């Protein structure tokens, strides 16, 4: 009897949605998560409010987690990793490992939802001094402060008077090797800028950018809102370097549309770090023998018309493991991956049974 169970790897937004969808349609999903809790990056990185609607990330993720945990068709394995895989569609043998040891699962299809990791701004952009200056932080660090409702200068806990975001850190950079746009950072920076203005109304907030990429409703809901209602200053021009001056950080750059160089003292500089494939994504690509693109994301070989099929039949990928993705992308792709995986195990079952 061919196996109709589906293995979902990764317990973030895409993995949770895929597992829930499979369960809802009456098939069995085994959800593997290497951390000891579900929720993925939004949980691990302590996201405060989601982009674009500013809904509480914790609340939104808890709803997704509960939908999986309350689903009798979903078997959740926490603290578990995939260490080996063999076989083909309808008959994969996947070895998993956890505190109790190794186990080999028989599944008909696999959905990989191992996501991304944030670009490490110390990797190639030393000009911003992320590891040198305490008050140079990332979108993720900022998110943690916003979640605690306490936005202060990290070095001395003082209320900031002026802060800025620097966009495209680790993205759109041939020298670094990440030529792609990370898609979400413009929206997240604008969202965080709004939250900072709400938390510290006297604090001036600047966003230094190359292009603002606020697609669809992010334009009125985030960009225009930040600019018109919250007086966030958008300056087209990227900072070239940051130097320490007294207790401030001097940000040097060019205001390209006003045609003048600038040097502005800032209390906090927030680096809008982009997305790179997570360690898990790289490992799964190797274990399952999946084609990766030049940036090491898993390649969706049928894109754009098929966003979830990989180079191996029966193995699907959803969310940010295939490239920079926002929540809408990840959730949509996860539902599609669930549907394609079910189709794969059903077709295979029919063929083998006849």
């Amino acid at each position, binding site marked *: 009897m061919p196996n109709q169970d589906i293995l979902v790897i990764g317990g973030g937004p895409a993995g949770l949605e895929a597992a829930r969808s499979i369960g809802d349609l009456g098939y069995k999903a085994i959800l593997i998560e290497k951390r000891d809790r579900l929720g993925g990056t939004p949980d691990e990185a302590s996201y405060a409010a989601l982009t674009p609607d500013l809904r509480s990330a914790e609340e939104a993720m808890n709803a997704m987690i509960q939908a999986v945990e309350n689903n009798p068709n979903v078997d959740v394995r926490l603290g578990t990793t995939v260490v080996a895989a063999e076989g083909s569609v309808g008959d994969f043998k996947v070895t998993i490992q956890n505190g109790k040891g190794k186990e080999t699962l028989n599944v008909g299809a696999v959905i990989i939802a191992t996501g991304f990791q944030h670009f490490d701004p110390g990797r190639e952009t030393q000009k911003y001094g992320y590891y040198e200056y305490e008050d140079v932080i990332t979108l993720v660090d900022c998110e943690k402060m916003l979640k605690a409702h306490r936005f202060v200068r990290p070095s001395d806990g003082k209320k900031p008077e002026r802060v800025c975001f620097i966009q495209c850190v680790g993205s759109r950079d041939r020298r670094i090797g990440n030529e792609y746009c990370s898609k979400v950072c413009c929206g997240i920076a604008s969202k965080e800028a709004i939250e900072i203005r709400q938390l510290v109304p006297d604090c*001036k907030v*600047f966003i230094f950018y190359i292009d*603002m990429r606020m697609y669809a409703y992010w334009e009125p809901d985030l*960009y*225009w809102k930040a*600019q*018109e209602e919250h*007086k966030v*200053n*958008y*300056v*087209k021009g990227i900072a070239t370097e940051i130097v320490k001056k007294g207790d401030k950080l001097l940000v040097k750059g060019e*205001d390209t*549309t*006003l*045609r*003048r*160089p*600038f*040097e*502005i*003292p800032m209390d906090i500089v927030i680096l809008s770090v982009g997305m790179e494939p997570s360690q898990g994504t790289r490992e799964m690509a190797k274990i399952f023998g999946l084609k990766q693109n030049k940036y090491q994301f898993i390649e969706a070989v049928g894109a754009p018309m098929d966003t979830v099929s990989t180079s191996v039949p029966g193995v699907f990928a959803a969310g940010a493991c295939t490239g920079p993705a926002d929540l809408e992308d990840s959730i949509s792709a996860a539902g599609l991956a669930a549907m394609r995986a079910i189709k794969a195990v059903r077709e295979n079952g029919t063929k083998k049974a006849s």
Partner: protein
Amino acid sequence: MNFDINSTPLDLTGEKYRDVPYEEKERLFNEIKADVRFHDVLYGCYECGVCVAACPSARFYDFSPRVIAQAVAREDVELVYTLMNDSIWDCSQCFSCDRCPRGNSPGGLITLMREVAVKNGLETAKEALEGYGRIIYKIMSTGTQVSPDMLQPNAFPDWGHHVNEIAENLDLWRRALPPETLHTVETGWSVSEKTIIELYLIWHMTGVMDMIKEIDEGLFMILQDVMEERLEDAGYDVLFDE
């Protein structure tokens, strides 16, 4: 924003106008923002340049309606003060810039900025309006626009030598034109007594006379004399109590 380097946009370097303390610049800026029309002329600017592309002045001067909108939207108090002392007077107020996709009206914003500059008696506003005294006098005293008798060489030196020819035989030229209304060299057309009284009242009640007084005391006094007599005849003599 407060840039700490003293570089300026466009060609606005040099001491063309009096510098004032930051607080004074902020006061002027807040006066612009407090105008009831402010929220209809400025939302936010994403610097697309549509307004500049449409702007006739931008073709002839180092002038950018985008920079005006941008500076005010960014609440760049220093730059707004700079622009109020120079750039805003390069605008011809044609409102071609009203095609802004964000719904801004840089021209409308400039109107507000000019009004604040005039009301506060900025020297640069006085200089910019110096050449218009004759036109303002004509419009405000007669209620009609530029009239033939203004075509004098001293008033329009930039019109070249033809203005001399025209000015010499002005009355003849005008009589050669068929429409009845143009058979005068003093006004463009006749304005009824009722209309001119209403115009005088509007200019007094809406603060236009106060603005003239701020910008050109001499012109104010001449206009006051002209208007006083006609308004008194119409029974409005109380208006000129100082």
